[in-house]
């Protein structure tokens, strides 16, 4: 079966700083896959290469069998992307926000309104869809962004820190909707997160990244089991990333932290 994502010897540098250093990764179709790692580990750079936001990298990236370097537009049609920041337009209504992306993905006019409504219903925003997004709570905004990404029926949903800045109830509601949509459509979900508990609960497999490389891949249960009977995913994370949790994140971490703080401020 063709993998949803296949990265082979992927590399990217910003000047002298190596962000991704020979990354190999394979994600099966239909799975919820977590990319974990400290700030500066190379997670966001990897996502940006998979989503075609960075120029064709050394190494290869394939999305559902399509070469990202040569078939960029075809790859974009298969991807739904939710960035780390809250990026819905507060001036527009929820429905207008989703309809914008329906048009940008060339959804046919005759089915467009129905698909916009379906995407809003899928994230439980159908009843408030005609309110301006600036009146939404942080959790609702995140679900609205999920609807924007889902309206084009992507085969690969990519979420960069989807629950950053959200309270536990909002976090659960976001994950509930992701899992419901995945169950209904069979799409593949690739998510980056710092929240080990979330990764443990919601991801079928995870990859631990550190200094631009994948240090370990497997199901949370496998990775914990390999470390000891009482190990938590936090322990696995520490085991593979050393002192990363205590601040060893000089490689581009500032921008991640700023983005996370900005998002946290916006969701209050």
């Amino acid at each position, binding site marked *: 079966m063709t993998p949803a994502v296949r990265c082979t010897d992927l590399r990217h540098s910003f000047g002298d700083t190596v962000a991704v250093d020979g990354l190999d990764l394979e994600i099966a179709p239909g799975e919820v896959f977590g990319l974990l790692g400290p700030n500066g580990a190379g997670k966001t750079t990897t996502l*940006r290469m998979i*989503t*075609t*936001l*960075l*120029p064709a990298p050394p190494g290869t990236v394939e999305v559902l069998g399509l070469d990202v370097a040569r078939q960029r*537009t*075809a790859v*974009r*049609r*298969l*991807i739904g*992307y*939710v*960035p*780390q*920041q*809250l*990026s819905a*337009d507060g*001036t*527009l*209504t929820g429905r*207008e926000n989703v309809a*914008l*992306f329906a*048009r*940008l*993905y*060339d*959804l*046919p006019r005759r089915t467009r309104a*129905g*698909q916009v*409504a*379906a*995407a809003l*219903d*899928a994230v439980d925003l*159908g009843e408030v869809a005609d309110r*301006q997004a600036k009146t939404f709570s942080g959790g609702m905004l995140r679900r609205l962004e999920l609807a*924007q990404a*889902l309206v*084009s*029926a*992507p*085969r690969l949903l990519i979420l960069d820190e989807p629950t950053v800045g959200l309270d536990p109830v909002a976090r659960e509601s976001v994950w509930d909707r992701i899992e419901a*949509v995945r169950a*209904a*459509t*069979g*799409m593949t979900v690739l998510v980056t997160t710092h929240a080990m508990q979330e990764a443990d609960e919601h991801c079928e497999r995870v990859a631990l990244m550190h200094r631009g490389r994948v240090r370990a891949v497997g199901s949370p249960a496998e990775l914990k089991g390999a470390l000891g009977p009482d190990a938590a995913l936090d322990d696995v994370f520490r085991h593979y990333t050393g002192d990363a949790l205590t601040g060893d994140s000089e490689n581009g971490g500032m921008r991640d932290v700023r*983005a996370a703080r*900005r998002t946290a401020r916006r969701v209050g």
Partner: protein
Amino acid sequence: MSALPVAPPAASADAGPLGIVRTAVSRTGTMCLVELQKLRHDRTELVTRAVQPALWLLVFGQVFTRIRAIPTGSTPYLDFLAPGILAQSALFIAIFYGIQIIWERDAGVLAKLLVTPTPRIALVAAKAFAAGVRALAQAVVVLLLALLLGVHTTANPLKLLGVVVALLLGSVFFCCLSITIAGLVLSRDRLMGIGQAITMPLFFASNALYPVQLMPGWLQVINHVNPLSYEVEALRGLLAGTSARLTLDFGVLLVAAAAMIAIASALLPRLARG
């Protein structure tokens, strides 16, 4: 709950230059619609942005009409000035559009747009025409104000259509100039500084306030390479009936807008990465 579709829409045949043009037209329609939706939800900006052109028309226009310091032939000075202020208000909206693009980059919006199946050049053209739509909405307010002050304008629908086209092309050029600068400086603060530094020189080095014949030689040279002058000349010719080289004016605006769209598109990925 209605069911979500499980397969993405079939790819349209969007390869090749014709496909890019078709996509650009479609995306331009989308972005212009979004701009109109934003204006419908928040009209305060139309009012606040009308203050400055209103002052130019009310204070500068009326005082200079009385003292007759600027010879404009048989055309009353306020009629001469109104098209210049129209172009100026559109310029001010377009030239700061790059700040919105940088905000969109910081908020993740630009990344989301770039992940859609939209060629960069189509995205820039769409954004630029959306700025033009906002400038047009502003121009309607300024034009109404001018009419209240007794400015004589044409009612010929064809000429008014020409006014719309001139304002759109001018806004596209200055919006793309702003995106280009944003792609070079990558920060809101620097773009704000540069925007403020160039808008007034662009305005004063044009025929917006005074006839070209009154300018010193060196300023006339700058005036000839300033797209704002061609925009003002076209607007003045269409609205006030003064002599204008409309073919040249629209030709310059069209070529300048197309060139600036191409340059801004080349810098967009740098802006997205920055």
